[in-house]
């Protein structure tokens, strides 16, 4: 192992990359080994870890899932009941979806109560709020995909809420539904938004979020 690493390192100069990404000081006040209460600083990392789980399990779920009103429910039922470990992978994605939102919220509370959003980190708070919106969007669009009763009516309700927005509401609703009803076009576009548009946007925002935290450093102790 070490030999393979050395061989690659000699040629590709990997160590500096590795150092840039991972090898940096963890200040005492954010290290749970020093102050146990510092575990609150883990929530951001845990959010990211859960997002990684979501991306992985989601990629594998699309091997079986079909975004089509005739087949969506049956393909989910098939992978849930007939594919080995399918219910585990779907379970990871299902529960992980909630865990992401919980962790993200805890992360936000920590940043808020430690005042970490203050100068010079205001822009990173804004990026964080955008990530929050994208993750909620992922939750909303993913909810429709199993195409069962809960999914259908949750989406109907969500779209009608969107419709109540003054002036643009009806347009937003039609855009999201892809037509007048929650139907074939809705499912196709929710799938596209769920697996292409929002994850792409999310990765971009996460990159900005992490570059900014490395630039600005972790905020000081209280």
């Amino acid at each position: 192992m070490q030999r393979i690493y050395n061989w690659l390192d000699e040629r590709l100069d990997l160590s500096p990359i590795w150092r840039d990404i991972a090898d940096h000081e963890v200040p005492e006040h954010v290290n749970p080994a020093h102050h146990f209460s510092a575990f609150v600083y883990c929530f951001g990392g845990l959010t990211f870890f859960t997002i990684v789980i979501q991306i992985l399990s989601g990629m594998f779920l699309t091997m079986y899932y079909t975004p089509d009103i005739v087949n969506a429910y049956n393909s989910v039922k098939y992978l849930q009941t007939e594919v080995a470990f399918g219910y585990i992978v779907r379970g990871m994605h299902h529960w992980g979806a909630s865990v992401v939102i919980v962790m993200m919220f805890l992360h936000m509370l920590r940043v808020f109560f430690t005042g970490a959003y203050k100068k010079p980190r205001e822009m990173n708070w804004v990026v964080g709020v955008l990530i929050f919106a994208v993750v909620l969007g992922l939750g909303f669009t993913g909810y429709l995909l199993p195409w069962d009763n809960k999914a259908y009516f949750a989406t109907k309700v969500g779209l009608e809420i969107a419709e109540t927005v003054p002036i643009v509401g009806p347009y937003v609703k039609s855009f999201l539904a892809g037509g007048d009803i929650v139907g074939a076009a809705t499912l196709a576009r929710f799938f596209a938004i769920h697996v292409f548009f929002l994850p792409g946007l999310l990765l971009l925002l996460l990159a900005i979020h992490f570059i900014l935290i490395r630039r600005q450093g972790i905020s000081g102790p209280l």
Partner: protein
Amino acid sequence: MAESASQPHFGAPDDAGGGREGEITRRQFLTYTLMGTGGFMASMLLVPPLRMAVDPLLKAGEEKPFVPVADVNEITDEPKRFEFTLKINDAWVKNQATTYSAWVYKEGSEIVALSPICKHLGCTVNWNASPEHPNMFYCPCHGGLYTKDGINVPGTPPRAPLDLYEVKVEGGKLYLGPLIQRT
């Protein structure tokens, strides 16, 4: 991971006590423990999706039943194409009527039923379809040729004879069953 005992990186000899010959240092012990735990957690994450992805490889195929295809008196010395349908389960599409076909002819009193699937790359062969090669099975994709008994003609792409259907005659009806591969 075992070879990392010689790691200059993690197992620096000057730290963390011990140091008797052949004993692992505290740092090595911690490295192994952390890597083991990390590896276990990573495998918890990766094993279920991977197992799910390879599931089709590990599923047993369905046994093909015998189905009635034609009346025996329709069959002549000349290969004739008969179609039949089987209900198959294609993942979540259950009981899907799928059309199969066979080239059937009489060889003396024996009935021969050949699969039309070319053994080169799976296109469908036709009897007498190429004017240059009369009385042969011809595959339009890459010019594969088979003689009437389904034996591949050397020098054309296929490397094996056409598969045979298992044949059964009951009450004047021809039944076709699972495929038999020949070499």
